[in-house]
């Protein structure tokens, strides 16, 4: 990026089944937490533009949100605000747009905030909105009429991972075990309990070969990040974190156009561009928050992001390489598996974690830093054809 960008504040709320909280309650709580997190303080009116991440509203019949949903709820109507929707990468793309707003030189200090009410609707309706074959898709293509939401798409990857790479259901379950463990150390996680391979494999089959505990929960949540011009960051904090690379990668929206079902080219493309922008290699990353909406997806991600070769993920996970104290901790926060997946809040929640880890404020889940560089990743949408990667660093 030509203009250098720094993160100076992050805020989130505890993710979960928040029946007692409205979208507005969640937005305000995350926003106020974010303002409070700025070490040397910030006046709300110093924020000159905002981007609002929102996925579920229009999709699951809760009313379409727009930019003013955010500005009016935070009482800052003098700033421009645009609503961003980019599938499961909505949160991370909202962050990316905020960064580009600053990098362009137009704005000095901006806000990225994402909030999602997933639990006001029953899971079936909520998942139906996510491409489950509901009436929204009818008229696009007959193959959408086959009841295919996220679980089915990822299960079809998982079947192929088992066949082509020799992965097993135990290998998938091991991702849940690791991420649930990490999640017990994160006060914001929806799930905060340990799980065993046996419990995963004994949970109901959702989409064979994936069980209930291979899936992340449906969750409400909100998260916010304030970014500013890197040369202004020290006014707000002595320990800013810098954004050194980001990118969106895409792949086919039609599942059958895809060539391989053991990799996601959206992730491969997003990572390639982000690493190029940052001028670093995957091996320079200390830890990563990746999109574990399903356990098998995490195994695919660590390969697609370039950390290891295709087919190695299951063994390396088993050997503890991705544990909190492994050489490459994956999802130290507990990931989507423990936090749940309030779509637009998810990516910003991951940025929260990367920021917290890079400032060594993560307490019991703190990872060891070598280069002081962390990566955040989302992938999703129909056929998992949209991915976003953001790379953050302690130094420019």
């Amino acid at each position, binding site marked *: 990026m030509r203009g250098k960008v720094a993160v100076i504040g992050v805020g989130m709320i505890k993710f979960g089944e928040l029946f007692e909280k409205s979208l507005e309650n969640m937005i305000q709580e995350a926003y106020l937490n974010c303002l409070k997190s700025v070490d040397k303080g910030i006046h709300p009116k110093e924020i000159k533009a905002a981007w609002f991440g929102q996925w579920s509203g229009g999709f699951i019949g809760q009313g379409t949100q727009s930019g003013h949903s955010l500005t009016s709820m935070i009482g800052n109507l003098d700033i421009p605000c645009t609503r961003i929707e980019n599938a499961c990468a909505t949160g991370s793309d909202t962050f990316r747009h905020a960064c580009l707003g600053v990098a362009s030189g137009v704005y000095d200090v901006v806000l990225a905030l994402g909030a999602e009410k997933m639990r006001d609707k029953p899971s079936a309706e909520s998942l139906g909105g996510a491409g489950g074959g509901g009436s929204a898709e009818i008229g696009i293509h*007959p193959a959408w009429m*086959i009841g295919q939401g996220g679980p089915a798409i990822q299960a079809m990857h998982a079947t192929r991972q088992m066949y082509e790479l020799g992965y097993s259901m135990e290998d998938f379950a091991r991702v849940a075990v690791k991420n649930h463990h990490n999640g017990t150390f994160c006060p914001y996680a929806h799930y905060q309990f340990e799980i065993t391979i046996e419990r995963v494999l004994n949970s109901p*089959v959702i989409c*064979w070969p994936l069980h209930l505990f291979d899936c992340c929960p449906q969750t409400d949540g909100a998260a916010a990040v304030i970014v500013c011009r890197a040369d202004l960051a020290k006014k707000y904090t002595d320990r800013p974190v810098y954004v050194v690379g980001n990118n969106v990668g895409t792949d086919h929206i039609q*599942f*059958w156009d895809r060539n391989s079902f053991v990799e996601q080219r959206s992730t491969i493309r997003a990572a390639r561009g982000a690493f190029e922008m940052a001028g670093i290699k995957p091996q320079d990353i200390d830890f990563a928050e990746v999109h574990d909406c399903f356990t098998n997806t995490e195994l695919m991600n660590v390969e697609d992001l370039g950390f290891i070769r295709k087919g190695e993920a299951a063994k390396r996970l088993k050997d503890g390489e991705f544990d909190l104290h492994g050489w490459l901790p994956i999802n130290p926060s507990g990931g989507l598996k423990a936090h749940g997946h309030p779509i637009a809040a998810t990516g910003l929640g991951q940025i929260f974690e990367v920021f917290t880890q890079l400032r060594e404020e993560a307490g019991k889940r703190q990872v060891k830093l070598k280069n002081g560089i962390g990566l955040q990743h989302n992938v999703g949408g129909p056929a998992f054809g949209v991915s976003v990667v953001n790379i953050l660093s302690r130094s420019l």
Partner: protein
Amino acid sequence: MTQPAPASPLFWRFNPEVFRLIGIKCKDCGHISYPRTMICHECGSQNLKEYKLPKTGVIHTFCVNWAPPPTFEPPIMPVMVDLEGGGRYQGLMTEFGAPEDVKIGSKVEMVLRKLTTDRGLNIYGYKFRLVEE
């Protein structure tokens, strides 16, 4: 109660695309895309020829969906099929005994079945069933 419609827009699109299975093959990169398109989804070329998808193939991948949307009776089995001679088609299995009978590499063929209803009108299309060997 949903009002019946005088016609479904799907019928207009269904004839060439769904029933006759017409897609395209890219003369530049070889990618087969379905349904018909004016631009190759893989490389962006407009140098295309019509390609009729074959009705038989082998299962490339699948899953057994025990939690489908409310309009479906579980379990349903979406399959991704490598068609004989090239191209892919995704559909639901029909007339299978046990889910365990369906495997990667199983031979399947398309059969015309009811897929759904659109405002009171039945919508037909292809599903897959196992081919006896």
